[in-house]
């Protein structure tokens, strides 16, 4: 529980919303229980009065019944609105907090997370945090408070009945779900493992579908998947059975509570400690009080999985960046780039870059060539301060480790190996929040050979990337990312394979236009395409280091 509350820290200033949701939840349960209790007391009193031919002031109770009915329905509506409002406030705070934590980690620090399946894992984990307040904290607090209040109310009339009711409410709402959660641990873990195995088997099978078909082994693999799926479903069945047990326990406890309350209160009725209508009231109150228990039990079941997600997110957020921001950012003099004996390796593999040295003078345009896998893209990433390195990389005389990321971005812009296109319009993807005159944008588009393609789109620059009918090809995506670089005014540009995915004619045009445009910029272009060499004054070849 502590871990769950800890992850709420960044959202603690929304405590008023959270508390209001919980209070309203208690009001709703109280109103419903009171409604049943007053109704029971009312009709029993009316029956007693009717049998004795006495008069009975029915005005107050019948008004209370109507009032409680309305309080319950309106309160329920309000509770839902307030708890959702609270949940969204919390979510917004958590998202911002989380995103800010990730900024210094990207990209090297994120690759370690969840074995590379960042997107899938992250989505599932943040999704399960969405449940944290709405499905766990609020119902648990509401339920426990209501149970407590119910016990106090009943104790006013009969202590023994209070003990019975409290005992059974806690049994059905707390003890039984906790016990069942323990029983569910093994199948829960097993089913998570099996789900993972199934996922990887299915992925492998689908990726290898051609091979399997040609090997005549499709059926064999499908049978294997069937077996895994069967095992998984069997574990899930086990979990479902345990869920049924929780439900059954709740139903049975509620009924048994009625019998036991009657058992302890009827003798008290005989001794005139409790009146007849009060007995009926207590019975109906007891039956309704179990409404508080259901959500509470459900919340307890959700805790372990949510705790796992919270733990992973905490771990990621607490990670130290591969290249921490310097305490004091030094100011570079100019932007001459110098690499001396630079090495870099991913994990335990052989180095991706091995003792590499290079100088890029101001105003120079240099092409870095070499077969794929020779470390060209790694070098670009090193210059972007994305990875830790050995040796020395300076820009304007300042070592990259002493330069703040923000200062670097004012000097260097880059087209990375795998640029990301955001789920937004082409215009926003190019500008990334920058202001630029329409005329300048038009020339950038022209220089990136994008003009014709964009003119062919019905909504032009305002076309949503990835929107139906506008599947952006790899080459188009690269050129959008290239335009992103050209709209900046940084002195240094790093271009990783700017012409990939283009046919020879367009490539030629692109290189010519870029050469003309980039006369006064310092450029490093990493490529294995001969046409791109036209961009450079000087060509440096990297040999495969592996």
């Amino acid at each position: 529980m502590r871990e769950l509350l800890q992850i709420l820290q960044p959202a603690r200033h929304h405590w008023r919303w959270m508390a209001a949701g919980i209070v309203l939840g208690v009001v709703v349960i109280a109103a419903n229980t009171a409604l049943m209790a007053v109704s029971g007391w009312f009709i029993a009193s009316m029956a007693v009065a009717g049998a004795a031919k006495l008069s009975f002031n029915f005005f107050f109770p019948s008004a209370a019944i109507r009032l409680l009915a309305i309080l319950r329905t309106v309160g329920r509506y309000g509770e839902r609105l307030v708890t959702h409002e609270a949940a969204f406030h919390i979510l917004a705070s958590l998202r911002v907090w989380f995103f800010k934590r990730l900024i210094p980690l990207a990209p090297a620090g994120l690759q370690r997370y969840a074995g590379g399946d960042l997107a899938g894992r992250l989505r599932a984990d943040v999704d399960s945090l969405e449940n944290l307040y709405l499905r766990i904290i609020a119902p648990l607090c509401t339920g426990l408070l209501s149970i407590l209040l119910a016990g106090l109310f009943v104790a006013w009339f009969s202590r023994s009945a209070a003990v019975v009711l409290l005992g059974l409410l806690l049994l059905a709402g707390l003890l039984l779900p906790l016990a069942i959660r323990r029983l569910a641990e093994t199948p829960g873990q097993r089913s998570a493992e099996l789900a993972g195995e199934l996922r990887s088997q299915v992925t492998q099978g689908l990726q290898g579908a051609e091979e399997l078909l040609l090997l005549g082994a499709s059926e064999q693999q499908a049978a294997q998947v069937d077996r895994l799926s069967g095992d998984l479903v069997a574990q899930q069945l086990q979990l479902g059975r345990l869920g049924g047990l929780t439900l059954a326990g709740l139903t049975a406890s509620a009924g048994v509570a009625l019998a036991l309350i009657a058992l302890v209160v009827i003798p008290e009725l005989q001794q005139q400690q409790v009146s007849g209508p009060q007995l009926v009231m207590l019975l109906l109150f007891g039956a309704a009080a179990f409404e508080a228990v259901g959500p509470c039990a459900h919340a307890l079941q959700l805790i372990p999985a949510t705790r796992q997600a919270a733990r992973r997110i905490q771990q990621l957020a607490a990670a130290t960046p591969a290249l921490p921001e310097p305490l004091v950012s030094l100011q570079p003099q100019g932007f001459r780039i110098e690499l001396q004996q630079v090495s870099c390796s991913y994990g335990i593999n052989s180095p991706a870059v091995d003792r590499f040295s290079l100088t890029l003078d101001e105003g120079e345009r240099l092409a870095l060539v070499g077969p794929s896998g020779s470390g060209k893209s790694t070098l670009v990433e090193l210059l972007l301060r994305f990875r830790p390195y050995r040796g020395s990389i300076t820009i304007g005389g300042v070592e990259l480790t002493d330069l703040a990321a923000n200062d670097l971005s004012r000097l260097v812009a880059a087209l990375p190996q795998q640029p990301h296109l955001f789920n937004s319009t082409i215009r926003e993807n190019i500008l990334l929040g920058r202001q630029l005159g329409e005329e300048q944008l038009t020339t950038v588009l022209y220089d990136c050979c994008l003009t014709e393609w964009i003119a062919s789109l019905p909504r032009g620059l305002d076309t949503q990337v990835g929107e139906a009918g506008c599947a952006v090809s790899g080459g188009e995506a690269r050129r959008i990312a290239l335009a992103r670089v050209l709209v900046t005014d940084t002195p240094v540009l790093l271009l990783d394979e700017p012409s990939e995915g283009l046919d020879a004619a367009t490539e030629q045009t692109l290189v010519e236009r870029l050469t003309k445009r980039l006369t006064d910029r310092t450029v490093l272009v990493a490529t294995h395409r001969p046409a791109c060499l036209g961009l450079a004054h000087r060509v440096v070849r990297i040999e495969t280091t592996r």
Partner: protein
Amino acid sequence: MQTTDAHSSPEPWLRQQARTVRGRMLAAILWSLAGGLLIILQARLLATVCQRAVLEGIGLNPLLPLLAGVGGIALLRGLASYLGEHAAVKAAAQVRQQVRSQLYRRLLQLKPAGLAGEAGPLTETVTAGVEGLEAYIARFLPQMAVAGMLPLAMLLVVLPTEWRSGLVLLFSAPFIPLLMILIGKGTEALNRRQWERLSRMAGHLLDLVQGLPDLKIFGAAKREAELVATVSDQYRRGTMTVLRVAFLSAFALEFFATVGTAVVAVLIGFRLLAGDLTLLDGLFVLLLAPEFYLPLRNLGLSYHSRMNGMAAAERIIPLLNQSTAADEPGGLPIPAGAVELVCEAVSFRYGGQRGGVQDVSLKVPAGSLTALVGASGSGKSTLARLLLGLARPESGRITVGGADLTRLDQTAWRQQLAWVPQQPFFCTASIRENLLLGRPDADDAALDQALQAVALGAVLARLPQGLDTMLGDRGAGLSGGELRRLALGRVLLRDAGLVVLDEPTAGLDAANEQLVLDAVEELAAGRTVLVISHREATIARCGQVIELANGRLERVAAPQQYLELAP
């Protein structure tokens, strides 16, 4: 998605699935009904206890059997609820297993023909997507049946006891489904939109996280962090507007149920005061009033289950309905000897998307070792797929030794083929079992021979368990180069006339590359081999080079000629 009409509901299909587990569904419904009938009995007993104790002044002892009855029925209700839940969960489990099995087999056929899409989303549908069916089968359907029957049963008991209250229930009840339908129609659309928004917001954060490196390059990360706050806030406002309306349906449901109960209570109270009714009957009816509404309220709340199930079904149905390229029973026998392939103006364009080929004419001579080169997306994989007969040309034709590929006996043709993709398929089983995928009847001597040929003999000899060594996930345990060679060994075992290798040496160091290429040459003896590759060392060993660019044939050249022009 194109194959189904946007307006056609997936519900008939879902119900059809439920019919395959009719027995269990029936059990689930019957146990729930039994539980409901036990409630009636329990209410009657409890009301009797109150009547006796409160009005007749009877002590505890004579009432004990009645109380034991109340407790006993409580336990029975627990049991009924457990059995009902068990049956429902089991029914849903069986449906999931059936659908997954059927869907996966279907995809294994669709995928090679390029008809199903990427492996990632498909995996998602086979795993998590199929799980989504549970809610519909195990929750929504039984709840619907119970909501149709149980209130009726309660009404039949209440009407003869206290007809006025019965009428209150009777007339408030139709409002509930009516309102549910009225508001439900509106909110279903609203809810759908809300779920879409939710996933769009989740998508927004992921999108930004994936693009973080780009944002950092352009110093835009801080600005986007503020945007995360703005977008989340907009989302909150938008969703709350939707929810204010969406919660109205639940509000209406609760309103009728609660006010109905309250009216019944007041009504009974006055009848009791007038002495027209016994406390027994009055309390009995009051106890039943909330239970009368309960199944209807539950049904109202289970629309999420319904939506989940429908969303899952909407993804599954089109895949199940997608027809594979009609496997016409072409009966022509396979020409004997090494395979000669000829493409005549072949086009295949995936409905206009990139990665297709257009108007390609070329010849792959029998027994040749041919390299297929070109940038990614230039159509290499598509051409390979067409040559293997996995996909059929949209126009033009491919001939094998003069016979049209599509008119060959497909089963016999597939036995002639071997294909080694970039990441060969290995299952979590022993090396032997993985090799036998190629030829189930091969003996150890044949396996050894194949392993020697791909220079894996020494590697296997070092493993303590030899051929029985278990491979981990995706072949974990052997190096990348060793796995490639193992896949080549598997192909050697097959008596294939045409072998296609996709990037057999990508990502390998020089030493491993040489070993793999030696194995490829071994393989090429007496077979027609097509190698998709970028690597110089690989291309240099081939007899001819076919280059594709943007789906068109750029040129066919000798390796030396091609390599001289390359950078």
